[in-house]
């Protein structure tokens, strides 16, 4: 198989081959720990003349892949523009380990970052002392749901509702603290935006341990 004119072993998916060559294409809903979801459509490439999502297309049987062909780049940019309309501006907070991927994808593909907050889907759940969920930043990629269900087999969160009312939620109308969530944090680690992010460190905080310290 050849990717952008370079030979590569056709093992795994097209995305595996592309990343093995060090070619940066966005892949927001593909986490290292999870099987492909194919929801975000940001990893589009042209493979033997068809535009496909690289993350869930097997490399076997594919001969020629172009990551930057005019058609693939145009459609990918359009997808990213639609993605950018799903969430608000970058919050002034530290995210999880993948939180910079979204912004890097915009910069790399020449898409403007959103400047104003969303008016709908704007809830913030900071009921857990370990992490918070800020709906403003959610792109509904489903990584968190997949991490909770397919990796940790807990099933605390899901996507409820459809269309503009779709939202990630721990049960219906329940906060993370009141749900069966065990705070393992796999969702936080898998989130490619700032939506699920660890609670900030509380520096110098003295804990209530009388008689010690």
């Amino acid at each position, binding site marked *: 198989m050849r990717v952008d004119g370079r030979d590569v072993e056709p093992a795994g998916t097209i995305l595996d081959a592309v990343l093995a060559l060090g070619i940066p294409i966005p892949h927001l809903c593909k986490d*290292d*720990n999870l099987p492909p979801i194919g929801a975000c459509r940001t990893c589009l490439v042209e493979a033997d003349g068809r535009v496909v999502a690289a993350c869930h297309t097997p490399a076997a049987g594919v001969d020629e892949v172009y990551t930057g062909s005019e058609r693939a780049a145009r459609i990918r940019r359009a997808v990213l523009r639609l993605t950018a309309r799903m969430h608000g501006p970058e919050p002034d907070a*530290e995210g*999880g*380990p993948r939180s910079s991927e979204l912004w890097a994808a915009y910069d790399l593909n020449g898409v403007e970052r959103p400047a104003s907050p969303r008016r709908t889907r704007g809830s913030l759940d900071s009921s857990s*002392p*370990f*992490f918070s969920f800020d709906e403003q930043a959610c792109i509904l990629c489903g990584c968190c749901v997949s991490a909770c269900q397919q*990796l*940790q*087999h*807990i099933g605390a969160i899901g996507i409820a509702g459809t269309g503009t009312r779709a939202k990630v939620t721990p049960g219906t109308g329940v906060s993370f603290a009141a749900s069966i969530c*065990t*705070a*393992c*944090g*796999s969702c*936080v*680690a898998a989130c490619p935006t700032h939506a699920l992010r*660890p*609670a900030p*460190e*509380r520096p*110098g*905080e*003295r*804990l*209530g*341990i*009388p*008689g*010690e*310290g």
Partner: protein
Amino acid sequence: MESKTWTTCPFCGVGCGIVIHTRGGRMAWADDDPVNPSSRGMLCVKGRFGTRFVQHPDRLTTPLVRRGGELEPASWDEALDYVAERLLTYRGRFGSFASAKATNEDAFVQQKFVRLVMGTNNIDHCTRLCHSPSVEAMLDQLGSGATSNSYADYEDASCLVLVGCDPGSNHPVIASRMRRAVDDYGTRLVVVNPKRIDLAERADVFLRPLPGTDVALFNGMARAILDDELEDRVFIDRRTEGFNAWRQAVMTSTVEEYAATCGVSAAELREAARLYASPPPRRGLAAGERPGSCLAWGMGITQHAHGTDNARALINLALLTGQLGRPGCGISPLRGQNNVQGCGDAGCIPDSLPGYQPFAGDVAAIFEEAWGAGIPREPGLKATDMVERIAAGDIRAMYVVGENPLLSEPNLAHAEGLFRQLDFLVVQDLFLHETAHLAHVVLPACSFAEKDGTFTNSERRVQRVRPAIPPVGSSRPDWAIVADLARRMAPRVGVDPRQFAYSSGAEVFAEMARLTPQLRGISWARLEDEGGIQWPCPEPGHPGTRYLYADRFPRGLGKFVPVQQSVPAAELPDADYPFVLNTGRVLYHWHGGTITRRVAALVDQMPEVPVVINPADATRQGIAEGDIVIVRSRRGRMSGKAVVTDAVREGSVFVPFVKLQESAANFLTNNVYDEPSRIPEYKVCAVCVEKKRPRPAELTAAPPTVSRDR
């Protein structure tokens, strides 16, 4: 500047791969490691969000020496010279606790110091309080004291039997892998636990025996297997001995009689036995392959006055059914601490040398030749005995590394009284905890995030620990402190100080590997290239071992040992103390809590000790969810917050042994011990529970105290 360090989680025995992100020299975030074969990209709440204790302001930053009654800062030279001088006078009346939280290298140097310089085998660690009965029974019956299978075998098994353990709270990533087996492969699940644990939701059979009736339960399962002729005759003939005598002992009662003793249904007992001996094949099992069963157990088996008998009864079951030595089956004593396997492997146990090698024969001679001096050949005192023998004057000085016995020993008021009688106590740790407050010298040690080394997890995988941040204050790695002390003392006792002139952890590991057959093929260089390696790994080209006992047991034949149900526990409920107290752990805290009390988010999640009580009992006692309740035993009292749920049986209460708000279950527990392992009976004692009455203001103004000898 941001950097990443690939290392190993410091909490439980699962040994998850953890990637520490540091920013400006401080730990910012802990991420999972997708390629670690033990954790496969998973972590739990403690590994992911609980490592901030490392940078807590309470960290000890300088040695402390007691002068005029107060602990005062001192230089390393002052502190170590003083310790060296004092310890020299206590040879023969000395004991040492090693730390299952420290590295293999730390453990190896410490046991070498105790044996070579202090001239005693009085070295032990917390395995005494968790799996010593399992190790006793496995060494006797099989010849090896380790988990036989890998975590991968839980996913390959057709049946999982979980006895007296709560992986969802204590080994969360193993629990995830077990849930995966059930959800994705249709693996059958048998849960045996008086408490309804989270995994019981997925169980095919859930047995809730009366506390302390484990031997009857497993003998009942064995009887059911024999009745159904589901035993593995070929395995019994070729691989075991003692079957007939054991069989006679088991046949003395019927399944119905055994079930009645345990308070479970005979039909369910038979079903559990059938599933374990001969489960239906899981989805995706290759045709013609025998479906395997994994047997995993925890403290619910071991922490009894007959803990070793319980473990024996389980091993008999594995031998009877031949569920050993193939993929997808095996026996697993689930290890509590990150390096409790490695600490034992490295020789921090009183009755054997590194690698569980006996003193007898030429083994001790090999060590003496390598170390250039004599070592004692009589077994030393076990941890619980060291503490109890303080009263008799047999132990006058102790060196405690990375343990807080005044949270973890049973009957804390009694234990504290004993520790106060010591002439000289050295504590080496991260924090000034309860035990350190009594010490004459306190030495600051590095945490896992500041040092190089290796941990060995529950599946015998030796994994690297790497420094992510510089040492806090003037703290030093445990092995470096002990080696420095040993060099100061060695010339005075006829030992060559060069025996402790290590320049790096790698050098320590190389010496340990040379002297320990099961580790001989492992080196830091290999771990760097290949990642973790599972022992036994006898030579450098060996890939490591996924499961034990494929062809033979280390002792030759597996041995059936007849065991009979004795009195369920040393102390049972009566009119004054009508409830059975069951202790254990919770997901959000780590053991006694010395570490997790210093993680704000974990304390927020669980600020008070929960006292879990059945709704029927709660109604009778007038207790509602969230009430502050007082729990009393003959030895002490504690308060906690009532959690009312039918997850616990009527007549029993569950309290985790974490200490929060100065309240801890071990003020209540009973200091009676199992023979021969000398584990305390943490799992059963008699208590009474009542709602706390408001006290007059003038009494509550004083700081809280713990009442003694009540």
